């Protein structure tokens, strides 16, 4: 797997993603500068977390105009795997590669804490290694992760099986208490219709070592490795 980790001005989980892939999973990675326009050497592109452009104007609203985003769109259209984490998810929405919007948390506060996610489907490139109903424990760290979409979009996301993760209680129940930010239907992550582009608010790269509190995030990166193994060369 050749992974590119996109670095915008203000991105900060680039190094964490590289650590998870390189040091934990022994997968090669390279950083992709936001001014690059060619991603041909890659088969996985990660848009990591952070505050690209300081979250000025609106989270992800400026980053989506960075030169690299045109290349990311082309890469996704050709079936390349794209994972947007936190700010990366926000950027994918601003770039219209994923539907919906991420509003200010219902609490109006930033939240950094461990959350439980129920895997809703194992068809996306980043959940093939999981089973539906499996509960992953992965931290969140955001101020604007409150998933919103209009009724029609929401309906189509559900109908097309594009909801990938929902916030849940430790036993997998979808409850209001388990929803850390007010997301509609506890949605924590979604994919595009094809399943090669996934965005999620939680940070799987922070959950790749027992030392740091858990390894459930590995399932998401391992899924991508396996998904790529299945694609004919």
């Amino acid at each position: 797997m050749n992974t590119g980790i996109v670095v915008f001005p203000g991105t900060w989980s680039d190094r964490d993603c590289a650590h998870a892939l390189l040091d934990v999973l022994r997968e090669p990675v390279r950083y992709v500068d936001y001014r690059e326009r060619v991603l041909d050497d890659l088969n996985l592109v990660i848009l990591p977390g952070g505050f690209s452009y300081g979250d000025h104007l609106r989270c992800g609203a400026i980053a989506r105009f960075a030169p690299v985003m045109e290349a990311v769109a082309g890469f996704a259209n050709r079936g390349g795997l794209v994972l947007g984490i936190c700010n990366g998810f926000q950027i994918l929405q601003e770039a219209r590669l994923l539907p919906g919007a991420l509003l200010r948390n219902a609490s109006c506060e930033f939240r950094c804490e461990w959350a439980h996610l129920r895997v809703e489907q194992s068809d996306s490139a980043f959940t093939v290694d999981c089973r539906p109903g499996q509960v992953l424990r992965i931290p969140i760290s955001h101020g604007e992760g409150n998933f919103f979409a209009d009724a029609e979009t929401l309906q189509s996301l559900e109908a097309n099986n594009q909801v990938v993760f929902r916030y849940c209680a430790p036993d997998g129940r979808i409850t209001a208490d388990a929803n850390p930010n007010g997301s509609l239907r506890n949605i924590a992550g979604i994919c595009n219709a094809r399943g090669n582009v996934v965005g999620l608010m939680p940070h799987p790269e922070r959950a790749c070592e027992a030392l740091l509190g858990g390894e459930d995030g590995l399932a998401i990166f391992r899924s991508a490795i396996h998904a790529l193994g299945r694609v004919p060369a």
Partner: protein
Amino acid sequence: MPAVATRARLEAVALSSDEYQAIVRALGREPNELELGMFGALWSEHCSYKTSKALLRQLPTEGPHVLQGPGENAGAIDIGDGLAVVFKIESHNHPSAIEPYQGAATGVGGILRDVFAMGARPIAILDALRFGPLEEGRNRHLFQGVVAGIGGYGNCFGCPTVGGEVYFDSGYADNPIVNAMCVGIVAHHRLRRARTDRSGDLVLLVGADTGRDGIHGATFASVEMDERSTSRRPAVQVGNPFLEKLLCEACLRLNELDGVTAIQDLGAAGLTSAAAELAHRGRRGIDLDIAQVSRREHGMTGYDVMLSESQERMLVVVRPEAETAAREVFNHFELHADRVGSVTSNGRIRVRDGRSVEADIPLKALVDGVPSRSPAAEVPDKQPSLRMPAIEEPEAILLDLMARPNLRSRRPIYRTYDHQVQDNTVWGPGYDAALLRVPGTNKGLALTTDGNPWYVALDPYEGTKAAVAEAARNIACTGARPLAVTNCLNFGNPERAFVFGQLQESVRGLADACRGFELPVVSGNVSLYNETSERNIPPSPVIGMVGLLDDLTARCPAGFQADGDLVFLLGDTQEELAGSEYWRMIGARLEGRPPIVSLEMERRLQAALLDSIGRGVLRCAHDVSDGGLLVALAESALFSGRGLRCPGITSPVSREAFYFGESQGRVIVSVAPRRVPELQKLMAKHHVPLHAIGVVGGEDFQVGSDIRIPLESLRQAWETPF
């Protein structure tokens, strides 16, 4: 135009007429307006330590592993593997009292710059905060603004906020305390000192444009506050963490270039202080042309430019041949850099505006020339301790204590801080000390800040000793060895004899404790004049400490780990209740003797802890501090959700003192039953008293026939929101 030392002019720069005369002697003439402003800033208490300097000489600053002591942007300690830990704590009290969000945010920003100016990547932030009671609207406004500002800056920048502390007391209602500590990591050979070494080198000003914000912030931080202070809101700077992130990455990259000779943060007193200190440390001179400084607005005078405290700016000194390479780095990060001057060999700072010379001052006078102030000191007699009536309902008292703002869970605060970014946080906020992995190794850094204000108020000497002892104990509880200290001395107006007496005694306690534990003080900050309308804050030294754990697999948690484990108390309890949270809760006056630390006992206790954690004997260790023994036991139960059963506890002291007294030098530990003999042997070897407390397990927190509380009720009290 030669200036006259009118009262108004001196007041504007907060200098005395004696100090003015010293300036005239140093220059051999009257200073002009700009020169007087520059002296005012650098001779302010905040920059010059003129009142505290003599006292601070008592502190131990050396040790075999010290790579950089006080005097640079931050201190540095060797942690093996060719790596150094760089750290410092600094106050931002005055700005936070006026504009809490930006005051706290720029406090974080300033301390981050101090660390990455040394070439180190910031890996952790801690904050020590003190506010008035939250029942009052203004205190709540300040509290919420400060917490939001810390999160707003640190989260965006991408450095985890992993620890700190907060206390509430009416003594902080006028002047809150906001101290921020930053810790960074750097390879030895990349550790950078901000000193010039060759004349002809170029001086670049990088980062934000210069505006009118924060003019005379250093001076403002060095005078007492009054009803006019809110009109000084323009003296509070505004932070831009996004720009700071770019500046940090650029500086870390610059640090790897040949020909970059110095990087200096622009903090208090802006360009004046940065340029003067940079040049003076290297015993060089500096020539600045302010016409070259990019500005945010038109019409700024030389005075504005030299004294602006606009944030997110750095001075970078390069060899002339390295300028192009440095500019490539700035361009990569889309940062703006002005060539504002050059290094000279004449020992003077010369400020030009194009061709016209605006200021010309010998650096030695500007940086080191301030006459020391030695105000009168008054140290009150030690008070005897009082006796209080016996308690009737320990169960209700424990529940009330757990819900007290000073003891309840800090989760509602720290969950608004990103405490995990960078993937090194083993234990974040909420425990005795935070524990971080040293990136790329299996070593751990234990980090804490401590400073119980009531012990210091009762006895500044003993209270400050206790703060050092507690910080070291917190670090030892994780299994890490305390390495070194940074400190922030927050006091009232030193021109009042009782305040200067507090400062004097506190520094003496700090020095004695640091010598006792062989801990060098490698950096720090003094914040005086925390006074409003003659009301002074309680004396509030804050100790920041860093410890090293050689092997993270040996770490020791603070919560009970397994049902059936046996719980012990290490250390003895004295009849000490003065200064305790329990006494404040029952409305006792703040008087008597605070808990007294025996440095000898404390050393033995910590050696015994490290020995037994190193041998894998302990399952958990938790410091007994604020709230006393039962609160500590309840916390260990709540950390892991395991109950505790204690048979009736007998003790030579009163039940109140045993349950709720805050005697120092105590730690609770849990061990697997089969390892008890080993624990007994180890404690005997180190001469540390060992007392059986109870057994881990069940759904309740039970102490003899006095207390039986379901764990969930205890948790509910503890998690009372702010």
